[in-house]
């Protein structure tokens, strides 16, 4: 899959205009704050219906303007597909594919797969378990729509159940017959989500190990371990919900379920978060994201777009060079990469014989450069 062109109106720091992209590597060069990352974010919008950086749509409209618009023309398995996103202040976001609005945004998720590597990814290793669940959910949702549907349903039902427990506490009430309908709604979804996550990690791990070894030369043993208190049996989970009712009552929220799952990253026998060096953590993350790309292509049959924001912040020149040589052998498809240095990336790609297009971003103005 490739993005052929992008049309922007009033996006973020006054980005407007048309861009035509190359099939392999597209370099976006500019100083920090020039708006080069915003172009990656516009692509993120087209693939995920939202910004990677700011979830509030109206805040992505240029200051002083009333609306924004992002439109992309894709080559999707040989077909031209036009995806557009319009946001107007005070109105609902309109998302269209080939001029037809989606009635539910989640119908778009996964149709145009993409993987982004950005500086704040380090939270996946260093942050709380929520960040890792979000990462898993993001990947699984790209190839399994049912998963996303059930996850949304699960979250809403847990929210309702928590409100019920708050209501009990505030009104000094207790009526288990009121809890039962929510448990019955939650249990099948919890089991489905836990099974899907488990299955995902099982299938993803070999892909990850392969990519990691390729980057590091195979001297370390890495692993991913998934933990959940939800078994594969619905009745068992219903039972667990019943036995934790007292805890739930005390804490006024649901204390067990897939919203407590975690994922452990390990190097050798040690947790990466505590014992990994910064370099190891960064390499681990890059491998995780690149494996995600390989995995998604296998799962969906579509080669995702790769968005690289400040990759040199993560790993050194030599490793990036080795990685990027995979562009020419077809492991990666279309790439969008940002950098502050003028020469570094274009030169690197030209030297390995990749098709490179370079854009210079200055104060939100984008110019195509000849290489």
């Amino acid at each position, binding site marked *: 899959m490739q993005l052929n062109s992008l049309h922007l109106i009033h996006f973020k720091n006054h980005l407007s205009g048309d861009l035509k992209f190359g099939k392999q590597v597209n370099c976006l060069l500019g100083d920090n704050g020039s708006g080069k990352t915003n172009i990656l974010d516009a692509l993120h919008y087209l693939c995920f219906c939202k910004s990677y950086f700011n979830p509030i749509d109206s805040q992505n409209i240029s200051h002083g303007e009333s609306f924004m618009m992002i439109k992309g023309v894709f080559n999707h398995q040989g077909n031209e597909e036009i995806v557009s996103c319009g946001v107007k202040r005070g109105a609902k976001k309109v998302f269209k594919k080939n001029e037809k609005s989606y009635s539910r945004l989640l119908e778009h998720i996964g149709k145009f797969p993409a993987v982004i590597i950005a500086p704040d990814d380090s939270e996946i290793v260093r942050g709380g378990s929520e960040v890792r669940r979000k990462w898993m959910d993001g990947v699984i949702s790209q190839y399994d729509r049912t998963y996303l549907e059930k996850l949304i349903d699960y979250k809403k039902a847990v929210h*309702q159940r928590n409100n*019920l427990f708050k209501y009990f506490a505030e009104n000094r009430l207790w009526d288990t017959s009121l809890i039962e309908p929510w448990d019955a709604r939650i249990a099948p979804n919890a089991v489905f989500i836990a099974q899907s996550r488990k299955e995902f990690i099982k299938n993803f791990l070999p892909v990850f190990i392969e990519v990691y070894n390729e980057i590091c030369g195979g001297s370390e043993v890495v692993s991913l371990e998934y933990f959940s208190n939800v078994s594969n049996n619905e009745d068992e989970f219903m039972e667990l919900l019943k036995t934790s009712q007292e805890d739930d009552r005390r804490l006024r929220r649901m204390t067990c379920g897939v919203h407590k799952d975690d994922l452990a990253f390990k190097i050798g026998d040690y947790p990466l978060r505590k014992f990994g060096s910064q370099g190891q953590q960064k390499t681990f993350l890059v491998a995780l994201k690149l494996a995600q790309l390989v995995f998604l292509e296998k799962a969906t049959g579509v080669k995702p777009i790769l968005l690289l924001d400040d990759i040199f912040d993560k790993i050194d020149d030599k490793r990036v060079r080795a990685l990027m040589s995979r562009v020419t052998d077809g492991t990666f498809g279309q790439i969008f990469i940002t950098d502050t240095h003028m020469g570094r990336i274009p030169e690197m790609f030209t030297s390995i014989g990749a098709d490179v297009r370079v854009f210079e971003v200055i104060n939100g103005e984008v110019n195509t450069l000849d290489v």
Partner: protein
Amino acid sequence: MVCKILVGFLFRCARYAVYIYGVQQLPSRLIEAAVDQIATLPGIGRRTALRLALSLLRRDTERVRALSDALISMSEGVSPCRVCHNLTEQDVCSICKTPERNRKLICVVEDIRDLIAIENVGTYRGVYHVLAGVISPMDGVGPADINIAALVLRISELDQDTEVIFALPSTMEGDTTSFYLYKKLVEFDIKVTTLARGIAVGEALQHADEATLARSMDNRTLYEI
């Protein structure tokens, strides 16, 4: 020319006044009291309330009185039906009173508007039970806030060939309310049904959303001629 400018100026002043008074003091306490009352209606903000109040001020007092009389008569004369909570001017509504209606077939709806929609079809011959809401803890609505106890009591007085039809919204809260109700009704050993959900009549398959399509597939029925 001067006149035109003056009119334009006055017009702008008027708009400005509306803007200011939307948030600030009004020129009369009586207007303010009326605006306060109108703004208590759902979906009406203070600015709209002021617009409505000013439009009422331009009417003859007689027409305004007709409006206020109609509102008071409605408020005094209409109340929920003692049996089904439909709205009525009497103790029991016209549907519950109709002798041809099957009293052992009870359709449970969330809202009066749902009842009206089913009645407009004109084929249903049973009676109703209006819950006036669905269970939703985050909106502070529990079973005691809607007409569930009355329904259970009503069913307890009927015999076993009673059928209750759940015609609640196809949302999480609607489903949860159906589940809760079912648990309360199951001891009476009656028939409980729920409305079929799936592709709308006359809708092309390709235009149905995925959830609807999946549900239609799961709940497919035996083909009969």
